[in-house]
């Protein structure tokens, strides 16, 4: 596209436009302003509110007395108008869903925003259902998502910086942060990284997550995601910055630490003791999900002496006659589980249910009865599969780790598991995203930030923002000293 200036001749402008925007859904409505000034309104049929155009543009302009560019601009009924002077800008605005008004004899065009397209209603996100607390979730519409955040933070310091990425998709991306809380250098780095993305199209926030990740080939997640505005806002108040992508209900947050995936919205709305217990349970579940199949295999092949005698006898009885080796049996069961999992996600809901029943109950039981796999192996994989979903954000990473651990257990045994665990930990402690350690606040140990990990501190204890994110504004809660005295006074009264 060239930087061709808008001509004084309307016909010439329209012919230039038609050469570039030849698609059938691009409409041109020619009409007279004040019954004498020739003009044309160009818009995309499917993205424009035609009723609003008729009411807000065509009707007032047709009746305009003594029209000129200034009076025309004033007469348009719209909250969002701007003027552009090149045809290139006109093309871009039309493709973004805006309407362009070109007037004969004027070197400028008026861009009017009358977008209208179908959008999903704000509903509870399926990936983070809560028992207590807000149930609103982000949708695919960026404006709606911004409004969900703005409604929660009514501060002048809340900033949305808009960027456009995608040569063809021209997707709107908004970097959102709270001035004075988020590190300036972090905001600058993120914006620079997003600006450097040169891609045909961005259709989901995961595209951006992949581009802003510092270790591009790593198995581990480096950008946080959430579908809930209340979680996003809480993260921003801790010093993180967020990225919203038009067309995606998943907001991104950086910097990311692994500990945040072990937290859930419910933890903050329910009892602290319950939250603590649940968080420990989640950690144990993840450990079980990754290690249990591997431990079972290594115990069966290499370390039978580690098993209590009664348990050993149960296992011996159940594996008697199984033709597969312990590691292959476990691998085979795991494969079946993964296939069932994948199939039940992709299949239509009603068929998926049937597949789950057939796969989970019939196939499993038949395989055990036929003596192909043992009951303990099936139980361990089922348990591991369930445990994995206690931290849904990490399922992809952990399911791969589970297979790696299983392979190591089958070939080297328990010592291999120890070595692999150390290797992973040594890798993770050196891992930083946006100068923030992935394993913080455990390694490096930041004792003040441990208040929101397995130990869930009371809300009134969490007076400072997490040190991990190095926010300049450190205080997030001031407990008034008078509260205690007031309580005593009330009691005395």
């Amino acid at each position, binding site marked *: 596209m060239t930087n061709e200036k808008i001509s004084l001749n309307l016909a010439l402008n329209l012919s230039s436009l038609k050469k570039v925007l030849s698609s059938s859904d691009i409409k041109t409505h020619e009409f007279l302003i004040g019954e004498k000034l020739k003009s044309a309104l160009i818009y995309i049929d499917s993205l424009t509110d035609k009723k609003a155009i008729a009411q807000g543009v065509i009707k007032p302009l047709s009746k305009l007395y003594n029209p000129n560019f200034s009076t025309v601009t004033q007469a348009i009924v719209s909250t969002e108008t701007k003027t552009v002077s090149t045809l290139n800008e006109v093309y871009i605005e039309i493709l973004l869903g805006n309407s362009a008004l070109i007037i004969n004899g004027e070197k400028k065009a008026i861009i009017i925003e009358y977008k209208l397209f179908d959008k999903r209603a704000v509903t509870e996100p399926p990936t983070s259902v809560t028992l207590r607390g807000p149930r609103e979730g982000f949708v695919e519409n960026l404006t709606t998502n911004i409004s969900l955040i703005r409604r929660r933070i009514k501060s002048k310091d809340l900033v949305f910086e808009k960027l456009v990425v995608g040569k063809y998709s021209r997707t709107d991306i908004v970097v959102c942060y709270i001035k004075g809380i988020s590190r300036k250098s972090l905001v600058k780095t993120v914006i620079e990284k997003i600006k450097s993305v040169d891609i045909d199209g961005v259709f989901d926030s995961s595209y951006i997550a992949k581009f802003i990740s510092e270790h591009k080939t790593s198995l581990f997640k480096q950008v946080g995601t959430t579908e809930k505005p209340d979680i996003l806002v809480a993260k921003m108040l801790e010093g993180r910055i967020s990225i919203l992508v038009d067309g995606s209900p998943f907001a991104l947050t950086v910097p990311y630490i692994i500990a945040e995936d072990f937290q859930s919205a419910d933890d903050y709305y329910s009892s602290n003791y319950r939250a603590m217990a649940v968080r420990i349970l989640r950690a144990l579940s993840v450990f079980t999900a990754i290690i249990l199949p591997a431990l079972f295999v290594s115990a069966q092949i*290499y*370390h*039978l*002496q*580690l*098993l*209590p005698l009664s*348990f050993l006898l149960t296992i011996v009885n159940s594996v008697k006659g199984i033709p597969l080796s312990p590691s292959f049996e476990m691998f085979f069961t795991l494969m079946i589980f993964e296939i069932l999992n994948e199939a039940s996600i992709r299949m239509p809901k009603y068929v998926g249910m049937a597949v789950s029943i057939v796969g989970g109950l019939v196939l499993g039981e038949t395989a055990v009865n036929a003596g192909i796999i043992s009951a303990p192996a099936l139980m361990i994989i089922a348990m591991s599969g369930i445990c994995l979903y206690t931290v849904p954000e990490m399922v992809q990473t952990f399911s791969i780790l589970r297979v790696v651990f299983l392979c190591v257990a089958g*070939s*080297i*045994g*328990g*010592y*291999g598991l*120890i*070595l*692999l*665990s*150390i*290797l992973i*930990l*040594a*890798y993770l*402690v*050196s891992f930083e995203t946006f*100068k923030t*350690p992935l*394993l913080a606040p*455990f*390694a*490096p*140990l930041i004792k003040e930030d441990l208040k929101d990990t397995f130990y869930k501190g009371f809300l009134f204890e969490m007076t400072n923002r997490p040190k991990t994110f*190095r926010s300049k504004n450190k205080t997030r809660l001031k407990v008034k000293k008078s509260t205690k005295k007031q309580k005593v006074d009330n009691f005395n009264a």
Partner: protein
Amino acid sequence: MLKNNEIKARQIGLFFIAFLPVTKIFIMPKDASNIANEDMWISILISLFLDAIGLVSAILLYKKHGTSFYSILETNLNKFFSKAILFLYFVFFLLKAFTPIYEQKNFIQNTLYETAPTAFTFVPFFILSVYLCTRKLRAIGRLSDLFWIFTVVGIILLTALSIESADFLAFLPIGANKAKILKANYYITPWFCDAPYFLFMIGKFRKNKNSTKIILLSFLASALLTLIFALTFYSVFTFIAGRELFALAEISKYSTVINSIGRIDYIGIFLLLLSGTISAILPIYFSAEILTKILNLKSALIPAIIINLIFFIAFIFFEPFHVLIITFIHKIASPYLLVLANLLPFAFLILRKKKTGLKINGEYNALFKK
């Protein structure tokens, strides 16, 4: 923010707690008991005391010069002598590395595996070692942040399980084997001599007013863990303690809790193996770092591969010579280790402080690169 290769005083403290006691709980209690019987704890106490002297010397050295050990050598000695001393420490760490790897290998082969595992089982250890050697000191500091809890929980669990069968009167009469105390102390020297770890960390941590206190208290805590474990071990097995090869696996074997709910002591053993593996790699880590400095290399990868390859060949292909090497290290090389760990840092205190114009933290290699 910390620089790339810096750690915190707290991490050094946790490093002592996480990694120093673990190598001393595999075979050392058995060997000390074998020689000094009920006075084994005195031998251990002497070794810990000597380590404390080495550590205090290193602290004083840092207080005096305020820079890394490499810089102290570079500014006070000429290039040849600095490199010669570094080479002595390189050999020191190589000798120090052999015992923990040897005992860990044997422990795994004899205790963890039902049937003797193949040599392949131990190969990943050296791969992990190469990987860790290429990590910055900051990574080791962060690993200390994680692993200290494994060591503490592991030792406490095993001790708690075995305490019911302990007979602490077995240590009486104190000093019955006076003549053998020093002999045992001499033999167990390679398990101790830990001060050089700190010596090679000075100048690489940000000191604050509590640094010295943190480091000394952490060393004390690590010494206590070692001593408590060794004392419990002897009090459980008394006069047959010298015949129980792996204290780690044997100590809580006869606990009634284990009889009723199964071998939960393996939880402790696995936790200790986690920190024990890093502990066994640490001497290789420091020797690779020193070799990198001696050869003026930018990365520790090549030295790490060379050193690990040497150990790999020694452990996989020269098994019949292992006892010979162990005997050499414990009976002949002990004085060498003692001198380098405790006497040399003390002797370096006489070096005068010189202005180097070098920055204190991190940039200690400037002279070597000239």
